[in-house]
């Protein structure tokens, strides 16, 4: 510790000067140490009273002295008092200065002292009063801060949906079509109301459709698809038959030496008609695959209900339309221009018209006892051309001997007796001198294709009358045709003069209506139920007999024998009742007593067209057919005329 060296420094610092003087700073609102402390130490101070000559006070004093010299005695006291004041001031200044020195430091004090010595009176007054220069008092106030509250509002977001589609050409087309339809509809609304009737009809149909749609559950909308599907399913099931129908041509016909065969195709049956016999068949003129079958009973004792079924070849398992009636149907006919109208004759003598477009199973128009129905079964009905008032009309023939024309006037059937079939030579004398005319019983009739007023009537007595619509009491001609009832008469579709008739007396006869005796006679060994000309050839016809056989003849090929005799119906107890050729396809349909309808395809031999000689064109058309038949007839006629 002794060897420690102590350094001694000679500084100019005043050891008595404080080192940590702190002043309050208003700016910073805190106490802050002064950065520099005055280090001056005053060892000795003596206040002098010497004033500078040129300063203000000096000049004042000099002036006073000069004036005091004038006022010596008065001013001396003043001067001395001034001097005393000055001394007092100086002393006070000194004390102030000393105080200041002690407080602040000597350097500043000297300056302050010097300044204060020169200007004692003015600053003195002000110093005493000074608070601050501007009389500024801090006065602060503060507004109320409003409490902030968050309030948000949001609109509902617009619903967004993803949508994707492909603009195909057909979608554009559909849009255009819709536009067109809308425009058309608006145009129609603007049209004058002259077409109310038609539009009402349309509206009714439209209403029906819409009402159906409204009532329906989902299933009915699929009706169209279901129909197509059913046909497709059937086609699949009966695929082989469909193929046969379309494509099969029996190749073995070449070896059969002009004989032909009938290939069985579909068989149509309906369970409700099992007990009924087929009484009438007819093809629809518009839809070549649609045919109507009338069901009833030929048995006098067993009369029951009747049915009308419409089948299509496209669907062999179920009929398209089903109508039922109280009385057995005996005959039916499609209207040529309105293929949805079917005229039907009943066993009880009534006639009715069924409208296929309407959904009901009841006839649209029906005759009654009041409106002149027949008193016996109606055996045949046939549509005629519209009369002059554009009313639909058809003819019916019945066993009561009347041929009646029915006209549809204002939704009612009005009848007109056209002819009464009076049997010649049988006017009897009844009681009281009345002349009774026994009437023949008409069983079939046919209208001429070209000559409108001409028609033939076959009767139960076996006579065929040639009649005209214009003459109501007389016949144009009478043919002693058969020994038994004439079952069917039919004009040749090509040749204007030829007709065919068949009867229960086992014969089929072909006539020229200008000649009283038949041209050709065929004996078929069994009562003939029906005979029909083929639509494709004037020399081909088919007949069916009650022993279940079908016979097809072609006069061009073989004048004396059938080209085809085939057992069509399996059971022996079954009788065939009707046959019809399809106007387009090489198909015949045959109805029998069990309510079955069988369709058969004609083999090529039966459909043979005349071969063209080399170099000659094959003419087709009615003229050729007529010529063909003419040739045959001439062959037959000449020996007769010779004879």
């Amino acid at each position, binding site marked *: 510790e002794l060897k420690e060296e102590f350094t001694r420094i000679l500084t100019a610092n005043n050891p008595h000067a404080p080192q940590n003087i702190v002043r309050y700073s208003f700016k910073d609102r805190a106490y802050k140490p002064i950065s520099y402390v005055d280090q001056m130490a005053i060892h000795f101070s003596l206040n002098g009273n010497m004033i500078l000559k040129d300063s203000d006070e000096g000049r004042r004093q000099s002036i006073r002295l000069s004036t005091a010299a004038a006022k010596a005695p008065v001013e001396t006291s003043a001067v001395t008092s001034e001097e005393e004041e000055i001394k007092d001031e100086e002393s006070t200044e000194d004390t102030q200065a000393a105080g200041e020195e002690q407080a602040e430091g000597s350097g500043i004090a000297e300056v302050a002292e010097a300044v204060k010595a020169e200007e004692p009176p003015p600053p003195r007054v002000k110093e005493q009063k000074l608070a601050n220069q501007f009389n500024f008092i801090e006065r602060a106030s503060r507004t109320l801060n409003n409490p902030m509250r968050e309030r948000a509002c949001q609109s509902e977001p617009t619903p967004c949906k993803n949508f994707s589609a*492909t603009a*195909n*050409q*057909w979608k*554009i*087309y*559909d849009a255009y079509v819709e536009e067109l339809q809308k425009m058309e509809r608006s145009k129609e609304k603007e049209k004058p109301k002259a077409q109310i009737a038609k539009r009402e009809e349309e509206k009714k149909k439209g209403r029906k459709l819409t009402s159906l749609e409204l009532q*329906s559950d*989902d*299933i*009915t*909308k*699929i*009706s*169209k*698809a*279901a*129909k*197509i*599907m*059913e046909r*497709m*399913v*059937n086609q*699949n*099931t009966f*695929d082989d038959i469909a193929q046969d129908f379309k494509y099969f041509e029996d190749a073995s016909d070449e070896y059969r030496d002009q004989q032909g065969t009938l290939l069985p195709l579909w068989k149509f049956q309906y369970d409700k008609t099992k007990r009924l016999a087929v009484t009438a068949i007819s093809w629809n003129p518009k839809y070549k695959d649609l045919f109507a079958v009338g069901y009833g009973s030929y048995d006098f004792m067993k009369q029951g209900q009747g049915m009308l079924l419409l089948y299509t070849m496209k669907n062999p*398992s*179920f009929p398209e339309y089903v109508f039922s009636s109280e009385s057995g149907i005996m005959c039916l006919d499609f209207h040529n221009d309105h293929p949805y109208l079917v005229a039907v004759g009943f066993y009880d003598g009534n006639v009715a018209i069924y409208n296929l477009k309407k959904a009901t199973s009841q006839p649209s128009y029906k005759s009654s006892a009041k409106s002149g129905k027949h008193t016996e079964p109606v055996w045949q009905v046939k549509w005629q051309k519209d009369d002059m008032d554009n009313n639909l009309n058809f003819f019916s023939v019945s066993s009561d001997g009347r041929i009646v024309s029915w006209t549809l006037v204002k939704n009612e059937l009005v009848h007109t007796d056209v002819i009464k079939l009076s049997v010649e030579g049988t006017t009897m004398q009844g009681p009281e001198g009345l002349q009774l005319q026994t009437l023949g019983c008409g069983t079939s009739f046919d209208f001429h294709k070209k000559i409108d007023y001409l028609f033939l009537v076959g009767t139960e007595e076996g006579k065929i009358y040639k009649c005209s619509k214009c003459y109501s009491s007389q016949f144009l001609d009478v043919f002693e045709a058969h020994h038994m009832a004439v079952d069917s008469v039919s004009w040749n579709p090509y040749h204007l003069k030829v007709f065919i008739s068949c009867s229960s007396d086992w014969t089929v006869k072909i006539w020229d209506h200008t000649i009283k005796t038949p041209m050709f006679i065929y004996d078929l060994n069994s009562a003939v139920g029906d005979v029909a000309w083929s639509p494709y050839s004037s020399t081909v016809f088919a007949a069916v007999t009650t022993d279940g056989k079908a016979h097809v003849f072609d006069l061009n090929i073989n004048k004396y024998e059938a080209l085809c005799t085939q057992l069509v119906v399996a059971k022996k107890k079954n009788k065939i009742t009707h046959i019809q050729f399809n106007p387009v396809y090489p198909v015949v349909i045959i109805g029998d007593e069990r309510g079955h309808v069988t369709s058969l395809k004609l083999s090529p031999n039966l459909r043979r067209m005349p071969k063209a000689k080399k170099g000659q064109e094959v003419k087709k058309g009615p003229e050729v057919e007529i010529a063909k038949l003419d040739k045959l007839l001439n062959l037959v006629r000449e020996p007769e005329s010779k004879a």
Partner: protein
Amino acid sequence: AEVEETLKRIQAHKGVIATMVINAEGIPIRTTLDNSTTVQYGSLLHQLTMKARSTVRDIDPQNDLTFLRIRSKKHEIMIAPDKEYLLIVIQNPCE
């Protein structure tokens, strides 16, 4: 109704395995098969029918698809499209 009868007849026809009705969105409405198979058939055949129809109409917009038949080794699927529905029948054609 009549349509119901027709559908019943189709179902009862020889060789028919199943019948279904699918609506425009591919959802089966009526079926004679179990649910899972029906749903599968429905969605797949619906797409196929849409594609077929689109094809037919693209070629000629005035044309439209009336029937679609798919013949496979085991059976035949027949589809009859309608405006809003599809009728599908699976049949085993007897040969």
